[in-house]
């Protein structure tokens, strides 16, 4: 397994470059660079990488829309303004440029994080966090929460199937009642599982924190080279633009 710190380091540096340079070209280059690395090096399907990015872009569009467009009572809201009923909606080259800069900067950073998230399981990310000496309590909590995501999801699906097989969702009203019961049941189930986990941990001599062996990873020198090229490219684009 490739050292997750190698990937996390790259993602962090690319993010910093996008944020500090504040150049749309750097942001766009980061998007293409990360996309290329994810698809060619990590073999993440292009559709998956782009799908996640498009979803993020949709949220981004809503926010930068507010930056690009201003609404006011007079035509002075922008260089170009249109009357919409009693209000004026307008925009100007400077606010459009600001929106474009914001959007590319955010998208570049998001692409870097997506690369990390799509190529690294959470367990490996926890190892990186341990390496960074983050608080043990935080890491232990994340470990158990991550595990519970799967066990509780399993419970949820099973309870839902059991309810549906007895027509729990036959009508809207019954559906609402069933969903309420399901939520309550899941809470009780989570409590019960927590108690059982506590017992099992105690019987294995748990004292305070969940100490485990670190995972050993290999450093991928090829990836280091690709990362260096990518980062140098971004810095060059920054200095040229």
């Amino acid at each position, binding site marked *: 397994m490739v050292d997750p710190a190698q990937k996390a380091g790259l993602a962090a540096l690319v993010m910093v470059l996008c944020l500090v340079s504040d150049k749309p070209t750097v942001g766009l280059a980061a998007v293409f660079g990360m996309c290329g690395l994810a698809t060619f090096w990590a073999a993440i399907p292009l559709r998956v990488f782009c799908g996640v990015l498009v979803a993020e872009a949709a949220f981004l569009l809503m926010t930068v829309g507010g930056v690009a467009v201003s609404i006011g009572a007079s035509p002075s809201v922008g260089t170009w303004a249109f009357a919409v009923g009693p209000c004026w909606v307008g925009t100007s080259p400077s606010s459009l440029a600001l929106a474009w800069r914001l959007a590319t900067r955010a998208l570049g950073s998001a692409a870097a994080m997506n690369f990390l998230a799509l190529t690294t*399981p959470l367990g490996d990310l926890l190892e990186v966090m341990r390496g960074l000496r983050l608080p043990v309590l935080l890491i232990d909590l994340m470990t158990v929460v991550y595990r519970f995501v799967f066990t509780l999801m399993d419970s949820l699906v099973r309870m839902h199937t059991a309810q549906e097989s007895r027509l729990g969702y036959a009508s809207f009203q019954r559906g609402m009642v069933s969903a309420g019961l399901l939520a309550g049941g899941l809470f009780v189930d989570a409590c019960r599982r927590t108690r059982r986990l506590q017992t099992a941990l105690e019987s294995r*001599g748990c004292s305070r924190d969940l*100490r*485990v*062996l670190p995972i050993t990873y290999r450093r991928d020198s090829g990836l280091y080279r690709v990362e260096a090229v990518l980062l140098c490219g971004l810095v060059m684009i920054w200095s040229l633009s």
Partner: protein
Amino acid sequence: MRTILELDNLHYRYPGQGFLALKGASLVVPEGRKLAVMGRNGCGKSTLFLHCNGILKPNPGTVRLDGRELRYDRGSLLELRRQVGIVFQSAEDQLFSASVAQDISFGPLNLGLSEQEARSRVQAAAETCEILDIMDRPVHALSAGQKTMVALAGVLAMDPRVLIVDEVLGNLDPWARSQVLTVLGRLVDRGKTVLMSTHDLAVAFNWADIVVVMKDGRVVAADSPENVSRDADMMNLVGPPDPWLSRASRENESRGMLGSRLSFGSAAKGG
């Protein structure tokens, strides 16, 4: 035969419950033997096991390890848990980490072993349980049988002298069951003591050296499978007579073949 663990007149009431889960349960566990603990649901098997490991504290009652009475301070509890390990009924609930290897390493590290020592313990436990091929898989991607083996390895890595296995065969397919029983057999060959609760008559009576029968929070029998199988009252506590087995044993009896390992003749008469 040396006694390793001794439970004497244990009483226990779960907080907030009106009835006693254990009403004077006593059991002497000889070292290096296989014990099958049987009895109906709710008869106190799991509660008894939790006392063996110091998770529950009897009131009144005493637990002795190697003849020494257990005191419930931190040091004695850690020592007891080093000697007595429990694999719980639901493997799903005792694995806390997404990584198989990390979950197994938890117990050894709690014993204060060095990383290097812990690593070799993890490796050895994984070899014993035949799970080397799934060490890199995330826990949520394992089957029920594999999860059980990982839970078992997590306890074995602590190298306990007594291993308690609480009804783990229930949800497993016959292959996974036989794998669990093979591993348990290996442990007994190495001198470990194994206690297993099960509802499976064939497993209990073929596998165990001693069959322990519980009823209403008490141990009512702890004897060789032959002796227990001759006691009609005991056989009624461990399960209704199996029509196939009782017919076979009746036929054996008429041919004068009493006393075979799996003799259910008395159960047939009693039922």
